């Protein structure tokens, strides 16, 4: 049982580091085991050092930085335990223009092996869709779905 956990943890960490490198140009990321009084693993924490900055608690990161680190961790989990489809609801809300592009590039790569349903208000992210649906409320209180052509 412990071996399963160790193997899975190593796999997630490896992928976490790889996605982290795609998101930040530089810096380091790792998964740290938090021991209890008996030396057993009590918890797992994410350790990140942003390029040019010192290692800091996750709470001190900016809004966009938190989103990127969270996405790196999530995508790492997706790689280790794949699902046929993923749904992401406005996960790009806190990202600046350049990071929205980075996110979109990672999305396109990962979408080669899995389906992604992505809800967004961002014009850049919208371009990544192979299919694009517009949801509107022509009649009050009633959703209407329209298939949109990407130009």
């Amino acid at each position: 049982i412990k071996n399963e956990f160790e193997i899975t943890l190593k796999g997630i960490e490896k992928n976490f580091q790889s996605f982290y490198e795609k998101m930040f140009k530089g810096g380091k990321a790792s998964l740290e085991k938090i021991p209890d009084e008996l030396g057993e693993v009590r918890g797992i924490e994410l350790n990140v050092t942003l390029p040019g900055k010192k290692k800091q608690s996750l709470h001190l990161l900016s809004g966009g930085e938190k989103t990127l680190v969270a996405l790196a961790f999530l995508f790492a989990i997706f790689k280790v335990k794949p699902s046929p489809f993923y749904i992401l609801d406005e996960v790009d809300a806190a990202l600046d223009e350049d990071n929205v592009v980075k996110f979109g590039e990672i999305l396109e790569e990962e979408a080669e092996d899995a389906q992604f349903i992505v809800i967004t208000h961002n014009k850049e992210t919208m371009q990544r869709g192979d299919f694009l649906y517009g949801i509107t409320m022509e009649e009050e209180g009633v959703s209407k779905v329209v298939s949109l052509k990407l130009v």
Partner: protein
Amino acid sequence: MFLESIEIFGFKTFVTNTRILLSPGITCIVGPNGAGKSNIVDAVRWVLGEQRYTLLRATESTDLIFSGSGLRKPMSVASVKLILNNEAHTLPLKTPRVIIERRFYRTKESHYYLNGEEASLQKINSVFHAANVFGYTNSIVGQGKIEEILLSRPEEKKSLIDRIA
């Protein structure tokens, strides 16, 4: 095995039968505030078996059924279907397509259907299992929830990894 389409009827703001065909790659959903985009996310969570109403932005079960508008009466049933492509025969059925439907009536009757026939939750879960649709809440990131994974305590991250292992 891939998700071909989602059909939503009577669930929240989807009054008429609404079919969303999915790309094998990326499908983007856009539109104004309040139009119903996150309601689609709730619909998928729900058909996958979610029971926690807080995760569905509902306080009670009947909140999931269209509650009426200025022009329309409330509806009496909500239905969400997932149409899975089974041409690779990885699901425990012989049909090229497998349809999983969850229905909920205002009377609080609740049913699951597999290819149109009523099925037990156990049977439905075996199909999800074969489809690699596990712990669906991992593969669905709700609006405003992306930071939650960071802010979770180390114990919670460990138990997440335990479940994956």
